[in-house]
């Protein structure tokens, strides 16, 4: 559940395609013009959402749910295909409305035109990626990618993703900074800073925002203690178990120590069962 939330949010609020940490500028202020990964979002939308998108600035910057559109993705059925000198124009119908999708052709793409025309025909479902543009008050989409849909569950998925992103942007994030808050609790809680409060600490035991469970965090604290650091060989697994077995099962403690090694928090010293923290 929790990780699903993560991945979905990152696609339109975080770093674009990968759940990457928010850039360093995130905490220092919310300048109106942001560049870099924060602005490169990918929003799943319906045609109706696009049509009702607002544009206050007069240029090609549209907002849906109060957040500027950058890259968008649509899923729908092609109902018309026209070939022009400089572009291919498709009409995509997703059930909520129809939108024109232009695919500009490069000069050296001549051979590929016929291929594209054969590939994307009227009546088939496609996923398009592109930007919203307006011409004579008519919005259209300039596509940079078109892909035929072969698994039709993607139709359901896309429309559910439209709902999810709409809800996330209108209700899910804390006030004032929707995209940053969306990334905050899931991917970008910096060390020492409490996780943002917009997502309540859920019934998993990862309340600290550092991605560790309680047993992992307690074990890590033991290794970070001054005593453990003062010793040349660090502390042994037996000592960790001795300190924590009143709170946790032994198997969980062993697993936590393995986790800390794998994540680079601690390293082995004189043998395989003595460890020191990497924090010093």
């Amino acid at each position, binding site marked *: 559940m929790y990780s699903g939330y993560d991945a979905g949010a990152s696609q339109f609020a975080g770093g674009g395609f990968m759940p990457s940490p928010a850039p360093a500028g995130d905490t220092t202020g919310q300048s109106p013009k942001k560049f870099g990964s924060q602005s490169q979002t990918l929003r799943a939308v319906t045609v109706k959402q696009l049509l009702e998108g607002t544009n206050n600035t007069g240029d090609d910057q549209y907002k849906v749910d109060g957040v500027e559109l950058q890259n968008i993705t649509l899923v729908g059925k092609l109902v018309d295909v026209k070939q022009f000198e400089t572009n291919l124009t498709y009409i995509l119908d997703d*059930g*909520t409305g*129809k939108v024109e999708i232009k695919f500009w052709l490069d000069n050296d793409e001549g051979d590929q035109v016929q291929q594209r025309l054969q590939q994307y025909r009227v009546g088939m479902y496609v996923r398009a990626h592109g930007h919203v543009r307006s011409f004579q008050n008519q*919005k259209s989409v300039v596509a940079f990618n078109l892909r035929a849909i072969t698994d*039709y569950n993607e139709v*359901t998925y896309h*429309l559910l993703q439209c709902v999810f992103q709409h809800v996330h942007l209108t209700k899910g994030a804390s006030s004032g900074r929707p995209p940053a808050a969306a990334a905050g609790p899931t991917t970008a809680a910096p060390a020492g800073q409490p996780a943002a409060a917009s997502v309540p600490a859920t019934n998993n035991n990862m309340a600290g925002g550092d991605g560790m469970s309680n047993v992992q965090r307690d074990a890590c604290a033991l290794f970070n203690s001054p005593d453990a650091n003062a010793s040349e060989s660090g502390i042994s697994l037996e000592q960790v178990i001795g300190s924590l077995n009143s709170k946790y099962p032994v198997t969980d403690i062993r697993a936590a120590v393995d986790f800390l090694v794998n994540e680079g928090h601690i390293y082995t010293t004189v043998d395989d069962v003595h460890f020191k923290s990497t924090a010093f």
Partner: protein
Amino acid sequence: MDTSDPAPRVNFELLQRYIGKKVRLVGKVMGLDGDLLTVKAADQGLVYVKVLPGAGHASEYVEIDGIVESPNTVQEQQHVEFGSNFDLNSYNELCKLAHFDYPALFL
């Protein structure tokens, strides 16, 4: 861009709201008798689709674009074959979300 002629995604229960209007119905093909196709909608209700002459209906799941004639009959205008792998339960939830919870995005 044009949203004047939408085709709302429906299950059996929602079909009756659109008599005389266009809908988009996804369901499981149960059988074809002459030009009458029986489709099980996402909420299990049976819908009879008057198919276009000569239109093949070979796949297990199908999406029908058509006009609702009565609470359980639809006149086909177009269709798309959705293959044999389609989760109708998820689709049913989508229909309900689109109509009851977030119509602003869809209708």
